[in-house]
């Protein structure tokens, strides 16, 4: 058995058996929920989990939590039911996503099952404890109930994230925990969603009609469907831009893969500097478009090692034109100002116009150029490339950024460029002879 599989098995076993214990407890000792309310909620919850939407907006990611809190609040208030049972049973159905089965994954569904059931169970217990003696609540007490709901869902997301963290850390090692740096933001939105969910659940309890619940869930489902078509559209949009970038690179054998690598290096630097999801996304877009200006440059100029002053001018003007078109797209405008910098005349470089993001892209761009073989120059070794970047006196490459890249590459254990300076020279000589 591979060590990775063993680690996965351990986590899956711990999580799933804890979860199973909770489900059994809920079924044997818990009060059964009011089924006509529970079923529509469970269906919605499962539907939301089934088509989990990948949106770069924390508020929308937590729609499942909100439905769970709404149901939890309702059942905690109900004298004959408990939030614990209702939420545990709901969570038990959530993690079985068809996609996982199709790809024959066993780890994700098992671990997710345990993780979601435990999370739901704990927050259900909290809601029960806070709200069980609320009895017949008047509508004037709705805000108090909502507050309890937000506490419950805050805990829900805290425990959830912690369990994911533990699992990822013990299975895959430390590095992959980096994307979770946006925690405070996530918590804030979860607590807000819980507040709203609590309010909804309490209102439902006071009205006590399944018909109202059905109407409520219809709106939820429509919102979710629109959200997933939005997310699809976003992916299509990103794919379209990527496609054009590929078309650009296909023209030049030597720069093939350049954009993807620059995007990767920039991502590494961004993660090292603890960028949030939104910042990383901006960086990715900026990298994607940073070379589009090249499309307008006459082909014969691109392959020349040395350009005459007027040729360089021509090249820069062509690139500028493309940039000005791209800047007409509202959301690309800030990215253009970050990315459109490497055609800049070095003499007119102005540090006050420079930003961290611009420096990241310039550094990633230069690093990739130095460590790749071009038509007119052989690749340098990684170490030489870093020395070259540090030796630059223009101030385009921030020392922090260079350090971050070096650290990140050390962590991933990747090495770019020629393997050693000596070999590099040998290759260069050979290249010169062949050329």
């Amino acid at each position, binding site marked *: 058995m591979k060590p990775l599989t063993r680690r996965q098995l351990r986590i899956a076993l711990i999580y799933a058996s804890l979860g199973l214990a909770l489900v059994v407890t809920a079924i044997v000792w818990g009060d059964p929920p009011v089924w006509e309310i529970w079923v529509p909620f469970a269906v919605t919850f499962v539907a939301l989990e089934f088509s989990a939407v990948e949106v770069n907006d924390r508020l929308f990611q937590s729609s499942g939590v909100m439905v769970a809190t709404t149901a939890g609040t309702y059942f905690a208030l109900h004298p004959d039911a408990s939030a614990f049972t209702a939420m545990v049973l709901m969570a038990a159905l959530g993690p079985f996503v068809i996609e996982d089965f199709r790809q024959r994954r066993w780890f994700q569904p098992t671990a997710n099952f345990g993780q979601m059931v435990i999370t739901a169970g704990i927050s259900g217990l909290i809601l029960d404890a806070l709200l069980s003696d609320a009895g017949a609540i008047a509508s004037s007490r709705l805000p108090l109930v909502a507050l309890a709901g937000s506490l419950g869902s805050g805990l829900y997301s805290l425990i959830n994230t912690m369990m994911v963290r533990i699992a990822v850390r013990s299975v895959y090692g430390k590095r992959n925990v980096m994307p979770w740096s946006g925690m405070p933001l996530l918590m804030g939105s979860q607590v807000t969603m819980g507040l709203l969910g609590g309010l909804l659940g309490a209102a439902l309890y006071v009205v006590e009609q399944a018909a109202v619940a059905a109407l*409520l869930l219809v709106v939820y489902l429509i919102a979710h469907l629109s959200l997933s078509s*939005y997310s699809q559209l976003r992916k299509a949009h990103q794919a379209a831009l990527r496609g054009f970038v590929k078309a650009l690179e296909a023209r030049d054998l030597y720069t093939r893969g350049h954009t993807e690598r620059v995007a990767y290096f920039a991502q590494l630097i961004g993660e090292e500097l603890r960028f949030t999801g939104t910042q990383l996304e901006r960086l990715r877009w900026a990298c994607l478009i940073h070379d589009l200006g090249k499309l307008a440059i006459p082909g014969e100029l691109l392959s020349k090692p040395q350009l005459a002053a007027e040729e360089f001018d021509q090249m820069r003007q062509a690139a500028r034109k493309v940039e000005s078109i791209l800047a007409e*797209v509202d959301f690309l405008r800030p990215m253009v100002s970050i990315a459109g910098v490497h055609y800049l005349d070095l003499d007119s470089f102005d540090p006050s116009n420079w930003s961290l993001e611009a420096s990241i892209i310039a550094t990633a761009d230069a690093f990739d150029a130095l460590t790749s073989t071009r038509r007119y120059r052989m690749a340098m070794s990684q170490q030489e490339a870093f020395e070259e970047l540090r030796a630059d006196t223009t101030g385009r490459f921030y020392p922090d950024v260079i350090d971050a890249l070096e650290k990140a590459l050390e962590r991933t254990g990747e090495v770019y460029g020629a393997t050693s300076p000596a070999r590099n020279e040998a290759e260069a000589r050979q290249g010169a002879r062949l050329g």
Partner: protein
Amino acid sequence: MASRIVWRTVVAGVVLLATVTSASVVVQSDASLVRAALAAVAIAAGSVVVPAVSSRNRLTLATSVGAALPFVLMDERFDPVATVAVFFLGAVLLSIAEFVRKGSIRRALLYAARQFMGYCGFIAVFSGMLTLVGGSVGASGWDELIAFVAGGVAWIAVDIALWSATASTDGRISPRFVALSALRDLNVFITLIATGGLFGMMYGAIGWWALPVALIPYSFAHGAFRRFQETKSTYKQTIRALAQIPEVAGLNLSGHSDRTATLAVAMAEDMGLTPEEVEDVEFAALMHDIGHITLNDPTVAEHGWTREDLARWGAEIIAGAPSLDRIAAYVRRQYEPYRNPGEESDPSVSMVSRIIKTASAYDAHRMGEGLSQLEALERLHQGAAYEYDPEVVASLRRVLDSGVTVNA
């Protein structure tokens, strides 16, 4: 001139009379006057304050206010006549608000009339179903919900029918296209009606707390709609920007793709294509000459190229984006003639490709060769039936006659 004044007087008279009648109906009913006035104002305000995302912003929060009205106008009772009367007063206010915003009294009246007639359909079916299932308003039970859903369906049907009848007379857009676009807004419509129902059904039990409670799921949906719409327009902007790259590189006529797209979309709408097809036409027209970027390559210029090559290269670039493979296929076949002498036309060439071909040729004649509109059309007429699809050329002519402006 005299007949116009007569018309205006008649319309104004009818509206005034109906307003007075509605007001008296409301006053004589059991409805509290404060609530009725509040509702009427809310209908007008709803139409101004929160425009939901839909085709030409035709759906607004006024719909939600209307949907809530049968439940909140009176406690535990429902009076269809009074409810309709209140909505009529609201519609009058709404038309004033529309007039102030848009400046056209005819459009404002049409808009308000459409809202009102849709609402009449809703109330008629709602109250009919309510008697049929023997339910009562205020219990928030399933019987009430069934009647509400039936009423909502009637509302949507009436609205779409009226919308496609009136909106298509504005320009020269086929009613089929308008109706199909309206159907795409179904999710927005349902959300608005459901939100109103949610508020109405909760109002009896928790009072004004129902407002935030009903608005929570709504704002959720609203955010999703907005994002979708924003992404869509961003997508289009991006495609348009990318399509201009060959133009700024000096490899194609400046502004050609933009003008071709404007023309092609107008033609597609005129010919009654579905909204999805019209969208495809726009994307394909914007990118139909993206293959010109390849001319930047010195080796290509050396070896020479044909129009088929250009179309193929363009399609290859577009096919780099998996979601655009349909568009790539349209672009790929744009060079093909309508039919060769002695042969039937090839049915596998899509209407989208034919429209792009014609629109692009028109722009090339007009802006590239500097021909007048008449001369350029004449050229296309000469090529009709062999090079160009005669139906498409006829549509182009209609579009140009209607005065579609293509910014040169």
